[in-house]
């Protein structure tokens, strides 16, 4: 604590915490606004038409729904008309009780019809809307299973999740309100028609106030657009801050940052509060305006219609009918205006959803691709050139062969192309030039699925799914018996610790296998590869994070794993490297040495030089040391 002061004196003025917070907030705001602004569009025809394409399977339901909407709205439009007949023919003209009974009976009939059709309409539309959301989410999910890995490498899970959830949820809001919006629109149209039919002069006079609503809208819209956008942006920043704090809570507590973070979050949340309140105010301004217009239109009915009634030019029932209609006319208009925000959000979300669906699938099965079965597990790279970015090849004309049953270790410094080799073997990416043969077949000629069944892969990071230990070892091999699973676990030396877990194989793993140690997770992932029972095994050995105890166990398990299989191992550990049948040394996308450990050591080439640097892994060797080794090799020292 005493050392804290020693650096302060001659330094430039410190930022106060408040200033630092302010700076960070401004930066966050700028970043997010940029992202959202792109989506500030209200209506996008392409997005809309793609929505429609998702509706295709539900054509029948939609037709039913549209008919139901028309019938329900139509029957509700009939109510005032019946009232009008009741007044003019049964009530005011001397009074005809029987006629009144009949009219009320008909009215009750229409009410019942309305009830039934509304039921159908709401039920069908709500269900189709939900189904549509699940379809969209399912389509995105299924698409993400197939898109090129380079996309997945670049995109974080959180961002994709916000599309699978947040964007889908905001579409839900849109679809729910559009049910009512459709009803509102039909109502508006229907009322206009009925009014014009019954008395077009009075109808025109009443509806004359409608255009002024559009004028109001033109003035209002720019404000609303800005207010709604700001509300959205501030929300998203606020949620982002919460997300980070939850994810990084251990660092937060370790650094005693709680108070600073709370202050920061307070600022963000206040921004959001202000923005939301302003957006509400903007939205609510329309209420008295609509009321004014409703009042105006009713005033027209009263003064003009009333005068005509006084003159006996208009029946009193029609006037009452007009009153009842006008009362219902403006509320839908206001509601429709408020849908604007929802629509804008839905369009932005739709765009983001379709953006995901449009991510190209680079690696596809050829039509008529071969299903590999009972192959001879050999591997051959023929002059393979490949890279992730144009003009930046990572592998430059690599050729090598792996015989069935042979284990080959790939070694080389970071960026030398080891991982790319293994990824290509599995056809995670397609190569630029050359050919990769597995069991004599070009990997592009066979189905990806059958290739996946022939080539098992163990990744550096032993990724486990939630579910039981048993589920994790079996994974997608549904045919695997319990016995097979236990045999596999025993083979890699995992059986013992699994039995010690509270429920043995049926123990449910926590998030990412949190209740297992790293070494244990590694062993489970080995067992998974054994159950998958592929003839070729690709293994990316974990670097230094495992301790020596587990290391021994893992070395043993590795031996079992590779027995009787063709293996390609990205090796870091001395034991693994030395145990391989052959070592391929990669550097800068090219093979520069090949041979057994002792052969390579005697050769005193790059391998021997790197090896003697005694790093825990070749990946850790600093660039300058590699360069030095390479250049010293070239000069022949």
């Amino acid at each position, binding site marked *: 604590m005493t050392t804290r002061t020693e*650096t302060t004196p001659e330094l430039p003025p410190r930022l106060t915490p408040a200033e630092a917070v302010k700076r960070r907030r401004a930066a966050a705001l700028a970043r997010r606004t940029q992202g959202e602004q792109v989506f500030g569009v209200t209506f996008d025809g392409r997005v809309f038409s793609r929505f429609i394409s998702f509706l295709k399977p539900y054509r029948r339901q939609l037709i039913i729904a549209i008919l139901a909407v028309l019938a329900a709205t139509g029957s509700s439009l009939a109510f005032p008309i019946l009232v009008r007949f009741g007044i003019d023919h049964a009530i005011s003209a001397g009074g005809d009780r029987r006629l009144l009974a009949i009219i009320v009976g008909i009215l009750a009939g229409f009410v019942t019809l309305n009830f039934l059709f509304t039921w159908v309409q709401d039920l069908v539309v709500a269900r189709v809307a939900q189904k549509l959301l699940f379809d969209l989410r399912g389509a995105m999910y299924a698409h993400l299973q197939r898109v090129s890995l380079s996309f997945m490498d670049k995109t974080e899970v959180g961002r994709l999740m916000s599309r699978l959830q947040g964007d889908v949820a905001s579409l839900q809001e849109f679809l729910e309100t559009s049910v009512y919006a459709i009803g509102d629109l039909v109502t508006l149209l229907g009322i206009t028609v009925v009014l014009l039919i019954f008395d077009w002069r009075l109808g025109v006079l009443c509806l004359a106030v409608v255009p002024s609503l559009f004028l109001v809208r033109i003035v209002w819209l720019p404000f609303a657009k800005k207010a709604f956008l700001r509300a959205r942006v501030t929300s998203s920043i606020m949620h982002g801050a919460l997300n980070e704090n939850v994810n990084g*809570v251990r660092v937060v507590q370790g650094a005693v940052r709680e108070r600073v973070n709370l202050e920061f979050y307070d600022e963000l949340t206040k921004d959001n509060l202000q923005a939301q309140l302003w957006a509400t105010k903007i939205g609510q301004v329309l*209420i008295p305006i609509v009321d004014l217009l409703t009042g105006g239109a009713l005033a027209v009915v009263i003064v003009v219609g009333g005068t005509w009634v006084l003159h006996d030019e208009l029946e009193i029932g029609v*006037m009452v009918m007009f009153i009842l209609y006008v009362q219902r006319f403006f509320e839908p208009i206001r509601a429709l205006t408020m849908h604007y925000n929802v629509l804008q959000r839905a369009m932005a979300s739709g765009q983001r959803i379709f953006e995901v669906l449009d991510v190209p699938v680079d690696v596809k099965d050829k039509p008529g691709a071969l299903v590999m079965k009972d192959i001879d597990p050999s591997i051959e790279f023929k002059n393979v050139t490949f890279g992730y970015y144009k003009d930046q090849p990572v592998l430059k004309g690599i050729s090598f062969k792996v015989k069935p049953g042979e284990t080959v270790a790939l070694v080389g410094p970071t960026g030398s192309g080891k991982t790319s080799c293994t990824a290509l073997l599995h056809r995670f990416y397609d190569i630029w030039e050359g050919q990769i043969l597995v069991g004599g077949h070009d990997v592009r000629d066979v189905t990806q699925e059958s290739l996946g069944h022939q080539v*098992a892969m163990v990744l550096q990071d032993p990724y486990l799914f939630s579910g039981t230990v048993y589920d994790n070892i079996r994974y997608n091999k549904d045919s695997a018996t319990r016995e097979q699973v236990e045999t596999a676990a025993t083979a890699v030396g995992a059986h013992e610790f699994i039995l010690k877990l509270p429920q043995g194989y049926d123990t449910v793993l926590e998030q990412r296998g949190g209740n297992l140690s790293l070494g244990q997770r590694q062993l489970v992932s080995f067992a998974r590869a054994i159950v998958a029972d592929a003839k070729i095994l690709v293994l990316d050995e974990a670097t230094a994070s495992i301790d020596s105890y587990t290391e021994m166990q893992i070395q043993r398990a590795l031996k079992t794993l590779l027995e009787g299989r063709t293996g390609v191992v990205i090796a870091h550990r001395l034991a693994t490297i030395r145990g391989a049948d052959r070592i391929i040394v990669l550097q800068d996308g090219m093979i520069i040495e090949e041979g057994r450990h002792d052969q390579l050591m005697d050769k005193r080439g790059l391998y021997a030089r790197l090896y003697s640097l005694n790093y825990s892994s070749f990946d*850790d060797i600093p660039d300058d040391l590699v360069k030095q080794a390479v250049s010293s090799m070239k000069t022949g020292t």
Partner: protein
Amino acid sequence: MLRGNPTATSTVGRPGTAPGVATPAAAQENGEQKVRIDTGVIWRITRLGLQYRWLSAFTVIAIIVSVAFQLWIPTILGHAVDNARALATGEAASYDAARHALILTAILLVIVSVLRGLGAMVHTNLSEIIAQKVAFDLRMQFYEKLQRQSFKYHDRAHVGDLMTLGILDIEFVRQFYPGGIFRTVFIIVLVIVGAYMLLSADLVLGLVGMSFVPFVAWRAVVTRIKLRVLWNDIQERLAILTRAMEENLGGIRVVRAFAAQDHEIRKFEAISDDSLTRINQAISVRVRNDVVIQYAFLLSWAGMLWFGGLRVIDGTLTLGQLTAFLAFMGLMMNPVRQLGFVVNSYARASSSGERVFETLDMVPDIQDKPNAKPVRLSTKTLRFENVYFGFRGERFLEDITFEAGPGHTIGIVGPPGSGKSTIAHLVPRFYDVTGGRVTIDGQDIRDVTLESLRHSVSVVQQDTFLFTTTVFENVAYSDPSVPQEAVEQATGRAQLDNYIKRLPGGYDTVVGERGVSLSGGQRQRMSIARSVMLHPAILIFDDSTAAIDAATENRIRAALKDVMKDTTVIIISHRLSSLMNCNEILFIDKGRIIERGSHGELLKQGGRYHDLYELQIKPSQELGEKYSIKAMVGAPDDGAVAGGQSP
């Protein structure tokens, strides 16, 4: 929650409770506990709004004013109709008088309409202000609660679940104010005042007009309970769906490696269909409720035309009055139509509120004692005295005793799962001991304030989290106001400054989720820099150099020498070369210290430590002898060999 549980049946039986008017007294009188939870949640949410006393009062006043104007409108419309018929009924003396009356009525109507609109604007605005303020409060409390919760809590909680709570559930609670409680007040005022006006004008007609009210109230209560149960259920299923998606995307390489796409899609579809089935059930309940309520309303409306019509024919009612009645019912149309939303809002708020409050009410198991004082540092001596630690029936540490100080560095080694990290986590009280005690300069760490404790202790974690912000702010995480030089000094010591300088924006480069990503070794060095920034009295390296090569580690150690001179250091590592120089090394297995002593002493003992040494250090030394290192690397002074000093 299953359908048809006791909550559903027992609350249905409660007579006459309109949605949302459940008073606290009513809630307390109700014997059954489950019922109380439900109404308790709604009442608690309501109370959160009521704490804004003036705002709430003004909202209610605005609602009453707005409703009064709104209910005046049908009467005015009725007058207008009577005015128009004034000549025919002989009420008006002349055409001019009748026309004059019409114009006056129209002007009054416009004024009242605008006033109603203003009232409505004010009350919706006010209720939204309350809602947003409560949401603000909840968000702040939620955030604070989460960041104060102990590691024990976060070990179990899913990030996705917490985010749903923080975003969706608080949002549903927020929507409850404008959409639930104040909407209910509005509807109740409207119905009561409306009923009074109708009933006082004509008892029979009023009864006919209001006949739908009891039915609607009953439906609302029943549906609310059904929906609440369903919503809880759906929420749980959606959480499972979220987790499945998150895992799949996170492990996409595994999925591809095993060609398990179809397996994963099937898994997703099963969960997805399951949720959809439940959602469809909720839709059915909601829709049936909505339409039945509307049906009841429209039937009373038709009844009104029948009874009202008869009255007019009898001459006991004017046509204008009938119009007023019908127009009044027209006003009710929208609120009744929205009742479904209101009911839904109650259901969602109570299920979401329950979850939010559950989190907010949780007391962090690690907190300051009431009379906790800041830690007083003198010799910076850290002592573990017979420490035990365990939870959920498992014991992780047993009888751990040691003392560390600035001149007495402790090294800890042992197999994974042996409890090494647990020791590190006990010092800053990320977890609390279950037996024995940990003291710093004689003070039990549970007696000092957490803040002062954590300022004096820093644990360099094995894997650290990067925040989406600049490198500068990530390094200066504990104190964002430090000068640039201090940050550069820390990264320099952690051997990270060269890398940072090569980044496009140097120290202003954004890293983390949406920025440049760092390798494991770089993250560990970042973690070291972060801790060094703090100048802690006690510095614990929790296997924090595993991904850093030995040479860099040595350079870091050399650079930290002056910092560590005055610091109590504990080094936990798998790599013996990292801790060989510690004054005392503890070998831990299954939570117990099984060997202890200096490196030399332990080697002499010939126990587990000795075996580990044989395994780790020997092979490379042998190799070094066989293939002369100096000959291969060239320059003899290039000391990038394990154990050597940095250039």
